[in-house]
């Protein structure tokens, strides 16, 4: 038996081992970081709901205030991406895309929620990519369009929670109507992407459910106020008065 050749094969495979180990380790690190991003983003979403529920002292625009605090919270996730950057350079990003994707989507969900509260619009692709770039505008990673859309699609669920739990508060009835129109628009805007972004179809049906919940809530407002002839704001006042009495 040619011992030299044997050694040769073993040597080659030793290189492979290093490659494969390095690959698995990196994947593991990215999965961990991605879990962290998910947790940070989830906390930010709760924070936003919380601020919107509290908003006791209206010293300043509560929506803007919430958005600011939300964005602050997300900075932590951005730091993580900055740290991940060198592990997902160039094509490596696509190699590890599956490990990174869940965190990215949750991040986009949180960011778009903060953005909606402040501006009443969807955060744009460029704006999201911007938050994932360093000061000189160099991206930490190439934001996949699919993740952008899937993250936005999750937003509708949070908006449903926001609309329904806000209904009982001053101005909540008007807000719910706004959110209803917005989510309806989202649903119809996203529809055209369903043939090209596979996982979007499932999320669209969740969006449909959320939309129907908001529609039902808005319906209830209209039915009840139709019994009398009062604008929604007047209703808020009357209710507030009877509770405080």
């Amino acid at each position, binding site marked *: 038996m040619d011992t030299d050749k044997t050694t040769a094969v073993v040597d080659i495979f030793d290189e492979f081992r290093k490659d494969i180990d390095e690959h698995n380790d990196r994947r593991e690190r990215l999965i961990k970081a991605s879990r962290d991003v998910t947790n940070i983003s*989830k*906390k930010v979403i*709760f924070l936003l*709901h*919380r601020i919107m*529920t*509290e908003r006791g002292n209206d010293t300043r625009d509560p929506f803007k205030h919430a958005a600011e605090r939300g964005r602050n919270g997300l900075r932590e996730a951005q730091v993580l991406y900055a740290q991940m950057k060198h592990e997902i350079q160039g094509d490596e990003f696509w190699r590890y895309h599956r490990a990174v994707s869940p965190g990215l989507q949750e991040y986009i969900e949180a960011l778009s929620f903060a953005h909606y509260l402040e501006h009443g619009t969807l955060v744009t692709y460029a704006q999201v990519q911007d938050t994932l770039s360093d000061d000189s505008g160099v991206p930490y990673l190439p934001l996949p369009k699919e993740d952008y859309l899937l993250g936005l699609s999750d937003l509708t669920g949070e908006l449903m*929670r926001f609309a*329904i*739990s806000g*209904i*009982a508060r001053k101005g909540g009835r008007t807000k719910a109507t706004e959110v209803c129109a917005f989510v309806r628009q989202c649903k119809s805007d996203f529809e055209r992407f369903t043939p090209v972004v596979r996982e979007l179809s499932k999320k669209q049906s969740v969006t449909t459910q959320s939309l129907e919940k908001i529609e039902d*809530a808005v319906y*209830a407002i209209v039915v*009840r106020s139709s*019994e*009398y002839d*009062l604008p929604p704001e007047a*209703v808020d006042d*009357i*209710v507030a*008065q*009877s*509770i405080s*009495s």
Partner: protein
Amino acid sequence: MDPQDLDRLNELLEQDVEIREKIKEQVAELDKKTRNMAGVLNRIHSTPTESSQVTWLSCRFIRLIRLPIVPVLIDSVRPILQSCQDTSAAMAALIPLNQFWRFKEMWSSSLRTAVYSAAFVEYLSSGKLISLPDVAKILGKEEWKDRFSLAVEDYLHGLISLVNELSRLAVNAVTLGNFEEPIRISIFVKELFAGFTMLNLKNDTLRRRFDSLKYDIKKIEEVVYDLSLRKLAAPKKEQVDSKE
């Protein structure tokens, strides 16, 4: 494997099985009590309260004909509630030191109903939210805490059940002519909801049940809204209007 090791292992595992079997019996016991309490408390939905001044007189009359009214109801729940401590004691005696969390899932559901009952009784008597330590005191003893205690999540589940029930009560109180209760409930539940909003939950049962709270609040709000607009709770005038 060494036959002796095998036997030892088997013995230990069978001890666990035995403990589970015995805990199951106690849980069945606890379960019977909590069902019983839930059954009695369910009657609150057809029970006029004293505080409802409008129907006070009819209530008096009703009492004479032996309808249970709220205090009577509460009085019949309290002893069952207290007796839960016996079951807790029995469980604490069964559970090995430091293994509370190992077996906890077996009785979580029953415990949550017990928490709900305690919280409902407290709300009905004092209008206050019962605190975790207070429920814990009612259902068990501090000194068992390595073996049996009340976890935050079970306490929170119990509170959500309370809100579910209060939204029903707000509706039924109006039917029974009590127009103050919904207002009280509304204030109480909003405060509680604000508390819940503080929490960062995972996508688990608690989160899902918390989401459902929004519908209860909405329902309560609608009742308050109906009452306000009909000026039944607010300064009374043009009662005729609301009749249409």
